[in-house]
């Protein structure tokens, strides 16, 4: 069972602020005070402060990549190439990606956006997957990329809560990467820093 901790829980109030700000509704005094205390969240972030959709775009792109990862693990798990303990691992990691996707989609909705949906078909290089290690290496590459992708997303968020939530996912992807490398017989933690 996945322990359901929602890293985006802090956004309950955020989405309300966004909704009020974006809808042109008359703001209550309380809402104005709330917004005023967060005057320059976007300062210094490329992509400009007056672009309320910027965070939603970043979340939706991350969601697209998570949905692909779920499908990739399904291909790995269904390949018949994984032996029992590794198969369990693949399914567990797939579960984590499902949890990420769920919370990302929820957050996009809360911010007034439309979450991207999974594609009917993903072009995976299945012809290169011939044994368990091929599958593990393929998954490791995706997880390593995911760490970098979240790392690249964190400084772009206008809302700091979102940056924190993305970092929480980043930590999980990094654990996946390390465990997959270990399973491949590689140094699980090859560097002190990720880039």
């Amino acid at each position: 069972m996945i322990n359901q901790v929602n890293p985006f829980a802090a956004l309950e109030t955020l989405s309300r602020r966004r909704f009020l700000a974006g809808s042109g509704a008359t703001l209550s005094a309380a809402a104005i005070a709330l917004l005023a205390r967060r005057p320059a969240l976007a300062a210094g972030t490329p992509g400009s402060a007056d672009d309320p959709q910027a965070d939603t775009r970043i979340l939706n792109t991350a969601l697209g990549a998570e949905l692909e990862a779920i499908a990739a693990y399904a291909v790995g798990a269904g390949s018949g190439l994984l032996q029992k303990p590794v198969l369990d691992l693949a399914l567990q990691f797939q579960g984590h990606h499902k949890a990420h996707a769920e919370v990302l989609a929820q957050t996009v909705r809360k911010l007034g956006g439309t979450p991207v949906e999974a594609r009917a078909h993903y072009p995976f290089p299945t012809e290169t997957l011939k044994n368990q290690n091929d599958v593990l290496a393929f998954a490791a590459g995706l997880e390593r990329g995911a760490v970098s992708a979240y790392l690249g997303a964190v400084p772009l968020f206008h809302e700091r809560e979102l940056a924190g939530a993305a970092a929480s996912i980043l930590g999980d992807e990094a654990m996946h990467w390390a465990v997959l490398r270990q399973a491949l017989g590689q140094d699980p933690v090859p560097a002190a820093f990720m880039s």
Partner: protein
Amino acid sequence: MKSAALALLLAAVAALPSGSAAAPTGDPTHGEEIYARCVACHSLAYDRTGPRHCGLFGRRAGSVPGFGYSPAMARAAIVWNEKTLERFLASPATVVPGTTMGYAGIADPQERADLIAWLRLASRSAERCTP
């Protein structure tokens, strides 16, 4: 004291890459390692969360048929080459405000040069680019 500090400052400024200075020479072997940062979203031969990179050089931004670009990228008046990639990869959201590539960029000019050197070769490799 003061002049030592000034000398230090001047040395630091001299070490900064100036806009017009020649870009560092790229090492494609290292560039391939850096491309590992892109593979959550991209691959050479296939469109994924991001568009394929095969055929990138000389291609207009936002022009892979069938890929769902942001309006910002579709409208961008950019043709991809060493120069434009060098700027874009330093900070995608600055160069194409509104892009869906939610990635801060690669800060190190040497790393960008390495990545671009590798992309230049890989994106036109017959072996890698026949799906």
